[in-house]
């Protein structure tokens, strides 16, 4: 039995917006795999909830007119993993969200909830950052789009206005085209796990596969919000993929990341595995792109 004051159910985006305005204190709930856990812990006990879970329009993956990949915010992790468009254009995202919790959580949990929760450990977050995803929010004055790095304000806080809900996540064509990525989740066990560190790397190689045109890397849990590593990316961009480059690229992430000491893991340990994960994810991404590490 949950200690909730009231539950309002929206069946359309318009209804959800109206409910948001009517009940400014209410918490939005989608799949509930984060909100209900917090409510049970007492953190959100006694709150009103606005459920958007019934809004089927927010489900599914498609290509928009500009061939950007559009993921409805209520699309579940398991649907993302099995979606043919995801598999074709951004397979790494499907692989990343396939590492969330358990099969049951992956069936109920949504990518919108995963990002709106605002936590650095979200399995989708590092890949979405590495692909420079665009977050679509819909409010009473229409649609607002902002880069995912601006969506995350600080730990546990994202940029959603009081009359808005998140309606989609977009991966621009320029971002996924000819691009191959790999995600490594570091956990203390192989399932039912929250990331100790998550690392997502993607590369686009030159036509002859000899040179790295673009390399992007992002981490979860390397700081209070998911983050890119501009120094490391600068090392790889335009370079020839070699084992030495992989080492140098990996060592450079230390300049960019800022993991903290906590009882879950020490800063030194997180830094150590961050370097190793960068090297491995980079190497694998180059392989997936058809390149060879000289």
């Amino acid at each position: 039995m949950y200690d909730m004051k009231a539950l309002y159910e929206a069946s359309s985006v318009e209804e959800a917006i109206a409910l948001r305005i009517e009940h400014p204190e209410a918490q939005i709930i989608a799949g509930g795999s984060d909100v209900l856990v917090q409510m049970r812990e007492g953190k959100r006990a006694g709150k009103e909830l606005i459920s958007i879970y019934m809004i089927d329009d927010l489900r599914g993956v498609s290509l928009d007119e500009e061939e950007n990949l559009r993921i409805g915010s209520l699309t579940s992790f398991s649907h993302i993993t099995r979606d043919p468009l995801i598999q074709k254009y951004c397979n790494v995202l499907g692989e990343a969200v396939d590492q969330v919790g358990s099969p049951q959580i992956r069936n109920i949990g949504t990518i919108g909830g995963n990002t709106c929760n605002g936590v650095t450990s979200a399995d989708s977050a590092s890949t979405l950052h590495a692909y420079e995803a665009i977050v679509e929010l819909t409010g009473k004055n229409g649609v607002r789009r902002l880069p995912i790095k601006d969506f995350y304000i600080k730990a546990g806080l994202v940029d959603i206005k009081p009359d808005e809900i998140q309606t989609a996540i977009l991966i621009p064509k320029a971002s996924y085209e000819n691009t191959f990525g790999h995600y490594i989740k570091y956990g203390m066990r192989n399932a039912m796990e929250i990331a100790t560190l998550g690392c997502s790397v993607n590369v686009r190689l030159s036509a002859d596969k000899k040179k790295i045109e673009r390399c992007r890397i992002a981490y979860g849990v390397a700081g209070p919000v998911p983050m890119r590593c501009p120094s490391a990316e600068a090392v790889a961009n335009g370079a020839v993929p070699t084992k030495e480059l992989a080492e140098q690229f990996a060592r450079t992430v230390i300049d960019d990341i800022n993991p903290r000491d906590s009882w879950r893991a020490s800063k030194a340990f997180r830094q150590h595995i961050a370097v190793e994960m960068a090297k491995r994810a980079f190497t694998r991404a180059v392989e997936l792109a058809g390149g060879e590490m000289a």
Partner: protein
Amino acid sequence: MSKVGRSEIRVDAFDKASGRTKYYEDRVPADALYVRIKHAEIAHGFVKSVDKSAAEAIPGVVKVLDCFDVPDLPFPTAGHPWSMDPGHQDIADRHLLNQHVRYWGDDVAVVIAENEVAAHQGVRALKVEYESLPFVLDVQKAMEDGAPQLHEAFPNNILKHTGMKKGDYSSAIKEPGLICIDKWYDTPTVQHCHIENHGCFAWQEDDRLVVVSSTQIPHIIRRVVGQALGRPWGDIEIVKPYIGGGFGNKQDALYEPLCAWCSTQVGGRCVRLDCSREETFVSNRVRHAIRFHIVSWLRKDGTIAARKVECFSNQGAYASHGHSIVAKAMGSFPQHYPCENMECDAYTVFTNRPAAGAMRGYGMPQASFADESNIEDCAKALGMDSYEFRKKNVMPKGFHDAFSGNTNYYDSFRECMTKGAAFIDYERKKKEYANDTGDIRRGIGMATFWYNTAVYPISLETSSNRMLLNLDGTVTFQCGETEIGQGADTAYAQMVAEAVGLKSYRDVHVKSCQDTDITPTGLGAYASRQTYVAGFSIRQTADLLREKILNYANEVTRQAVANMDIVDGNIIRKGDGSVLMSLSELAMTAQYNPVHSEHITAESTYTIRNNAYSFGCTFAEVEVDIPMCKVTLKNIVNVHDCGNLINPALAEAQVHGGMSMAIGYGLSEQLIFDEKTGKPLNGNLLDYKLSTFMDHPHLEAEFVENPEPTSPFGTKALGEPPACSGAPAIRNAILDATGVAIDRNPINPHVLYAEFSKAGLIHDDWKEAK
């Protein structure tokens, strides 16, 4: 055909698979009140006051009670048989709610409410004022002079210290040429993580108290509830329905006394008390963290000249099972690797951690980790293969222990080792993996253990049961040993069918739900005793029932009792094997005979004054990713000699479960505490790293079936043994793979990072660049 030794389907399989089985929560009356506990938010101190007003004002809150309201009747909680010797009785150091807070999570108040939400709100609204005291979490620190004291009666927090000596240790170590291995080994605080959390509900009826509880020990709980409430034991009725596991946590009075008392405070209304998972981690029981100091003196020929073992057991805040656990751990050493000169000491020490109680293995997973790590280290120091070193030194055939009366009738250790080595291809892989040098290295390790089957002669071993011949020729069976998910009822059904002479184990109806008003008195599920001890009384009661059946059959058939037998549900004449009548015909005739009516039933108690060694080993194969500080368990096998198997499929399942627990113990599980506040940090199933299916390879269970001579069914312990040797086998495999001996478990990535850094296997060169 024999009814035992067959992989029959569990008697409760259909009900459990279809969701029909009734656990305690399925039986709670709809109008029961909810009890929620306010747990202390300091590790040590005194409650000065509890402000109940805000909680009492919440709609739905019926009553708020605190530590100043409870009777001053200290009671013990351990699920041990009552001892007639006051010196051997468990320590009574508990109150229903506590003014003296001894750990973060101690029980200080309760809210009783009409519904769950109001109960939660009430607990959150309570304002407790504390006087905080310094606390201590570490055993060695708790023993120091001036350390915070938990219980007045135990100076330096030492609950008990015992020792044992053999030969002359101090002279023996002077022998020239000895190699000395002097090391410390640390084991963690872990929790049982049974599927069903503990809970219970209670009400008053006829001025008596009825408690339905998820417990392993209904008859013992009856006594403890009586003690805690100051009521005659006959006033208490405990009902144990099906339960979803216990692993020893429920071999303790948990919240039955508090729940029963709460009912008495609301006019006898039914109240329910359900533990959340978070409460289960912190405010039930945990496994003792035991620290060992082992000094082994070795001769170059691979024999052990002398050994000293010191064991320091972290009891946590309350005595619970107390010294029994570390005493058992210590007692394993002189018998496991017998040597002429030994000195052992064991200390049980109170600290401000959650109370430690019984947990699957009862001291042996800890002892096994330390002993088998040390034995591995000894072999390495001698340059011997540890498999050969163990074969040379482990308990020999014919070994006899005067105290328990146990004899090693077979060469079980070596038989188990041979079988395990063959399965895992030990010799070949050991050689092959020695060549691994890169980032990823493979290794193979092993460990052995022995386990006592029951608690004789330390405590009473008794078993009672009742058999009732039904009119259809089936038998209804009740006993005091408890089904807790392990499959005991199925083993009983098979043994009863065998002993009485029924056609099938399906002709035995085991009353799984136990009621202390009805079920013959017994001690419950613990010590891996059930199949062994129940075997004695099943054989005895079956003989009584058979005698009654055959005596009656003699009246009907006019055949001499000695000439008849009961086979496959029929009474037969031995001479020609002819069927005289079925058991059903006999039961109907006996019941409805207008001249001599008889309800055929038998009941008896057997006092078991034997015990039996159970043996086994684990072989584990790992792949270690050194830069990632990760261990992948590739292959694992347990081999057990637990005597004859009553049900091989269930025995295998029992072993799989224990292996899973051992994997978590070895690699990931540990309850951790904030050094600054004493607060448990990871008491939930996300942060406490219980291993999952995805962390397990195939679990191989094999058996050596040497019949146990003392048992009527040739059987002995299997419940706890599978949890004993897995962790050290994994530890030894990691040592084999990397050359790094890690002397604490769990061997998780944090530990590997520290140890690999120390050993120079990993090197963060970017650190220098900074």
